[in-house]
């Protein structure tokens, strides 16, 4: 069980704020940390890793990582950390990156097999693709058999197909190694697929805490669909108005009446709800 109660004054892009977080994370839990950029997610992860200082207490399975008297360095916390930019040791091969952490060759073989990297073990990390690098980074983070695995937007730099592949790897490794995992992510599908608990930070405070289903499914009552999008344009066609909305990679048109059209502003984020049809998936 990870328990933390920390406080740190931050200077964000939106001015000063206070990162003030009380949190308990159960063993083997997969926690997703979401929130706008600048809300303190990465800083929270770095404080947990011992890379940044903060006031307060952190303990893991009864072992004190930080209190008023002492603060363990990152070397002593037995954690794994996956960085957004991989942060692999560029002077080493794939295998050497893993062996640098721990000389356990059997574990290296097992991890590389699990992530389909065995063929690449003698390659320099600089010659790998983004997806391959992040898999190496994930394997490296597990070489110490950490109790706590921290991941800072590990898949955000990858294309959607590679993301899906790596999400499977992450989930498989999380289960096999029995780690308590905390992952910063913005991607709702990723969070839904991987996490059993989601926390949303805003201005350094936890504003939502629940299961992925509770937090991410936005439909209410009899609504079948509720999609968030950006209002790109409002076109007048005879007596009606048509709103052009970007939802993800799709552009859709929605008919508005005059009152609605007047109340909306181009550029604003809108919620598109519908319930009166039965969709088909192909």
């Amino acid at each position, binding site marked *: 069980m990870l328990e933390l109660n920390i406080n740190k004054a931050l200077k964000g892009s939106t001015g000063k704020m206070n990162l003030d977080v009380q949190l308990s994370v159960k063993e083997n839990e997969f926690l997703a940390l979401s929130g706008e950029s600048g809300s303190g997610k990465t800083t929270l992860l770095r404080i947990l*890793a011992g*890379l940044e200082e903060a006031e307060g207490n952190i303990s893991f399975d009864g072992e004190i990582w930080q209190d008023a008297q002492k603060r363990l*360095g*990152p*070397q*002593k*916390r037995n*954690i*794994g*950390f996956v*960085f957004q*930019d991989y*942060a*692999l*040791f*560029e*002077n080493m091969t794939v295998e050497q990156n893993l062996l*640098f*952490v*721990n000389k356990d060759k059997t574990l290296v073989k097992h991890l590389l097999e699990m992530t389909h990297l065995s063929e690449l073990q003698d390659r*320099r990390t*600089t*010659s790998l693709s983004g997806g391959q690098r992040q898999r190496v980074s994930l394997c*490296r983070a597990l*070489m*110490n058999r950490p109790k706590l695995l921290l991941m800072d937007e590990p898949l955000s730099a990858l294309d959607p197909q590679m993301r899906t592949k790596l999400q499977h790897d992450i989930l498989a490794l999380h289960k096999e190694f029995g780690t308590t995992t905390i992952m910063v992510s913005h991607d709702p599908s990723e969070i839904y697929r991987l996490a059993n608990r989601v926390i949303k930070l805003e201005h350094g405070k936890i504003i939502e805490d629940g299961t992925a289903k509770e937090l991410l499914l936005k439909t209410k009552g009899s609504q079948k669909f509720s999609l968030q999008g950006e209002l790109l344009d409002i076109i007048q066609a005879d007596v009606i108005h048509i709103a052009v909305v970007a939802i993800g990679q799709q552009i859709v048109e929605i008919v508005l009446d005059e009152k609605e059209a007047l109340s909306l502003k181009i550029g604003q984020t809108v919620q598109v709800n519908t319930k009166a049809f039965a969709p088909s998936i192909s």
Partner: protein
Amino acid sequence: MDFASLDLGPFLLSFKLAGITTLILFMLALPIAWWLSQTKCKCKPIVEAFVSLPIVLPPSVIGFYILYALSQNSVIGEFFEATFGISLVFNFTGLVIASCFYSFPFMVQPLQSGFESINKNMLEASYIAGKTVLQTLVYVALPNIKPALLTAVIVTFAHTVGEFGVVLMVGGSIPGETKVASVAIYEFVEILDYDAAHMYSAIMIVMSFVVLLGVYVFNRHQTHRLGTA
């Protein structure tokens, strides 16, 4: 004087001086460059200004103060004379000390900018892997700044070979002891032996060019290797 009868003693002395200075400075500059690259201390600009002083000061100023500090009349000079029985000026030891001051920034600055260019996350990944700062420095930081490392070593070496003012003030011109190549050229010019001065100078130019060319070719190769990889 023809090429065959050229006394190579001053060159050998220059190389010996430059080699020893480079070795000492590498040991001294490494922790300082590392500290400067990692610290968030407010005193960093002060330390950086001190480190860079020898670049802007006239060599005569450095030479004068080193002479003043190390002479038998000074506390340091007196201590070395009394304890070890050695004098620190007008001999090779004095030259090494003076050269270390003079060439210090040329070792610190490339190393510091090399360390600063390393992805901080890479170093943090090493700490998280349980490695100490020293292990991280040796196994992660240094191997990833090879071009900067080579630049620091070669430029320090070349700069020490090329020094003149400080050497002349602290060492004088004792053949076999303190008469390095640059001082020898000065003396040839003074006695109007332009042929010898030409030969010595030409050797210096060719040697310096080859060394710098080597550094740039190596760095280009390294950059390409990292870039295309």
